């Protein structure tokens, strides 16, 4: 997670809140949140190696599959949920979105924008494109459900997910005028606070 993205997420997470991070990776974000915002954080991660990194980071973590197990966290008293660059890796992103808003009143979602011009150009050349946000080759990627910013916001509208805040970042991780004016074309990543 780049610095700009991290500072946005840090800004949106209330002090001393109970946080659950779905797809927490090596636990870096939760560690920083504990240090800087005194949150009580838990991570959910499926990858055994990443779980071990979480343990090394002193992060409370649980090895589970988000698709299958997300509903287990409903009623656990979380204030806010995070799903950073994970939603596109799920088998049922819409279902996960419906559940995440029952797990916590608010959630922070970040996602790579497949509508970004560099990726479109890549596709125009006839190959599966890659970028800093989507570095893996098509045969190695864990992404199952890539979408554009327009697609994701359509889903939010259809499902009445209330987007409270959003920030669009360009491929250098900055919130530029171009990325914010034409996000679907110029943003590489989007961050949402949904509740």
């Amino acid at each position: 997670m780049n610095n700009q993205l991290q500072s946005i997420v840090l800004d949106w997470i209330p002090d001393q809140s109970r946080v659950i991070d779905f797809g927490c990776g090596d636990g870096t974000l939760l560690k920083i949140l504990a240090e800087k915002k005194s949150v009580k954080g838990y991570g959910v991660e499926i990858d055994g190696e990443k779980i071990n990194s979480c343990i090394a980071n002193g992060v409370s973590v649980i090895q589970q599959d988000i698709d299958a197990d997300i509903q287990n966290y409903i009623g656990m008293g979380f204030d806010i949920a995070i799903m950073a660059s994970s939603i596109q890796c799920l088998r049922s992103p819409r279902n996960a979105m419906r559940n995440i808003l029952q797990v916590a009143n608010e959630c922070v979602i970040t996602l790579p924008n497949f509508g970004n011009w560099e990726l479109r150009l890549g596709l125009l050349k006839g190959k599966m494109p890659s970028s800093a946000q989507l570095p893996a080759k098509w045969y190695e990627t864990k992404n199952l459900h890539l979408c554009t910013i327009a697609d994701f916001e359509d889903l939010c509208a259809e499902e009445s997910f209330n987007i409270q805040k959003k920030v669009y970042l360009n491929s250098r991780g900055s919130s530029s005028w171009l990325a914010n004016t034409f996000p679907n074309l110029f943003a590489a990543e989007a961050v949402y606070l949904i509740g």
Partner: protein
Amino acid sequence: MLGHITYLSESNMSKRFGRKLQDPENKMDADVNYEVENYLQYKGEQFAKTFDANSYILMTKAMDSFDPAKDYDDNLVTCLQKAQAKLLIASFDSDWLFPKEYGLEIQMAAIKAGINSAYIELEGDYGHDSFLFHSDRYAAALKNFLNSNE
């Protein structure tokens, strides 16, 4: 010996014994047909020589009656809220004595209780006894846990 089997795993037992017949020269008993029978017979005799059978009955009762939530209105969450240590819960996929669902139950209660706790699932060929054997992920998890400052 039924109890002993629960410490092992189905896959390991079938790899080790399967339906192999016991060679007649090393039979523990005349009516033994299979290697697994012979092994259990042998183990049973070893246990009988080493332990008083009554100690097994007592241990079984002690294990059956162990219930950490008993003094907290059967509420594991309330019980864990008193914990000051951080937890590492490791479940082995072949363990049928203490299956992963039990580990998960503790982890979910730890989350509700708001205490620091990590839950991992490990692969192991030896059922409940897997915790006695080295695996890289198991060793790394333990090492990371013991070294972490939080």
